[in-house]
């Protein structure tokens, strides 16, 4: 019974494929791949619809107002109304725009985000595409989005679009470094680039209570915080949403898009957010493992999506709480603080590994991380320049 619930989707897929008993093996393989794609798309499109209304609800709650509450019960049908509105809106392409690139940019934006969702293990035996170098695949498709942002910004032939795209690319390139380096310790300890093997490496409990998730080690906790911050930047979320700072750049690279193309960008942004949060869950929060041994009777996919929801809620919470920071502050944070800290995590993980993971290793890696943190904040704090700002470029 418990096992059945846990594997319900795997069994359902098996039953579906058993209808193809007459077909040759390659047909079954192709159909199986399409079933996986359809499942991932269906789940995440639903989640996208849900989060678009819940984000507005939560932000409204933080700002002490109601939020959408007119369409359907509690405003839950708002995404349907939004979808219809987006579909029937006029699709405007500026006269000076580069038509082909302008058309291709939203597609080039959403495709990598969907591909990245394919390698994340959503539950026991529930990875859509289980490839050996899954982590590398994730970051390879992620790095392709920078070019899509450029395509959108350049083809619109609008200075706000171009400036927004330049900002977006600059901060995405800068934060890709800490994002990838913080993954290194996990890959080192798990000894594999496969997301499934990384989740397996976090199985088991100490005394049946404390899970062996990487986030509960000093290097893992530091790496998780850095990864989470970098993922805020990579998905252009507050406080790093400068590329679309409304007050100065209209909507950045999305300024000249309307109707369904704009909706596609919006969708790509949220899919990117799901993908990077899912990767954070896989790498640091134990993937689909239950937090304690006696809670293992709850199906694995419920655990994965609960952890994902907690991270997504934190994304929204941060958006409702923090103001946007300046572009030079964003860059400075990446290169002077995040990158050295990310390398420190690598060293701390190596020490933890050679101390065989006992209490001693735990304390040693904690000491390394906190020493470097204290030192860095001393240096950066002393250098903080609190004099009058001189505008060099805007006189």
């Amino acid at each position, binding site marked *: 019974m418990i096992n059945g619930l846990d594997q319900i989707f795997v069994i359902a897929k098996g039953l579906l494929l058993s209808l193809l008993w007459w077909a040759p093996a*390659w047909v079954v393989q192709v159909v199986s791949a399409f079933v996986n794609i359809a499942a991932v798309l269906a789940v995440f499109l639903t989640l996208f619809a849900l989060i678009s209304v819940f984000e507005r609800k939560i932000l409204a709650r933080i700002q002490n107002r109601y939020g959408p509450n007119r369409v359907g019960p509690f405003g839950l049908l708002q995404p349907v109304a939004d979808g219809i509105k987006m579909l029937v809106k006029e699709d405007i392409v500026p006269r000076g725009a*580069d038509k082909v*690139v302008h058309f291709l940019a939203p597609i080039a934006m959403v495709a990598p985000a969907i591909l990245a969702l394919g390698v994340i293990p959503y539950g026991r035996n529930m990875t859509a595409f289980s*490839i*050996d*170098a899954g982590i*590398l*695949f994730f*970051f*390879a*498709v992620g*790095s*392709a989005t*920078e*070019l899509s942002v*450029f*395509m959108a910004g*350049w083809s619109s032939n609008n200075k706000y679009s*171009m400036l927004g795209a*330049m900002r977006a*690319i600059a901060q995405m*390139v800068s934060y*890709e470094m800490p994002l990838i380096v913080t993954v290194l310790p996990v890959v080192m300890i798990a000894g594999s*680039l496969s997301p499934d093997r990384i989740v397996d490496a976090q199985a088991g409990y100490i005394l049946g209570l404390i899970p062996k998730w990487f986030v509960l080690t000093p290097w893992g906790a530091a790496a998780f915080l850095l990864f989470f911050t970098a993922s805020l930047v990579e998905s252009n979320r507050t406080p790093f949403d400068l590329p679309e700072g409304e007050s100065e750049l209209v909507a950045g690279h999305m300024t000249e898009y309307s109707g369904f193309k704009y909706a596609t960008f919006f969708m790509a942004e949220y899919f990117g957010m799901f993908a990077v949060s899912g990767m954070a869950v896989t790498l640091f929060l134990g993937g689909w493992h239950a937090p304690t041994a006696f809670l293992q009777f709850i199906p694995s996919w419920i655990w994965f999506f609960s952890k994902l929801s907690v991270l997504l809620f934190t994304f929204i919470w941060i958006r409702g709480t923090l103001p946007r920071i300046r572009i030079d502050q964003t860059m400075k944070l990446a290169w002077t603080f995040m990158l050295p800290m990310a390398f420190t995590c690598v060293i701390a993980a190596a020490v933890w590994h050679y101390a065989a993971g006992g209490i001693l290793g735990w304390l040693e890696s904690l000491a390394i991380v906190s020493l470097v943190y204290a030192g860095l904040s001393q240096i950066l704090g002393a250098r903080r320049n609190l004099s009058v700002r001189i505008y060099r470029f805007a006189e």
Partner: protein
Amino acid sequence: MNLFHLLPFVVIAVITLAGAVAAATLSNLVHAALSLVLSFLGVAAFYFLLGAEFIGLVQVIVYVGAVAVLIVFTILLTRPLPGARKGRNWAGVFVAMAVLAGLLWALHGTTLPASHPLASNALTVLAVGQKLMTAYVWPLQAVGIVLTAALIGAVVLAMEEKR
């Protein structure tokens, strides 16, 4: 080689070559750069077809994620020279021909394996890592030093302005 192996090869080859030809002939530089990206992706697809997963993914990270962005930024931040004439750049043609000749020479000297290479030794990340850390550790370090020097050079160039 049956149809199922030939078909992906032909499709990828056509896309890669079309991207390369477009990159060489289009007059709009940004279009040329984007076509070059298509050709990079095609090369990555070839690596996947050969079972070299790691090389294919690194091809995407390095060429699509970094080199293409660099090219695009270079195009945006520079202007064509005021007196620049249209027409063929013969020095470029010469360099391209030299590279082609070098590649052909290297191809001529290689003996291709008769059997399908997939079956015997698929290139895993583990194997690549172990080779890099044992047999090729000095070249790796040398490349690291060259890249660090380039990084420091870029920082020095950017800091010049502050004085």
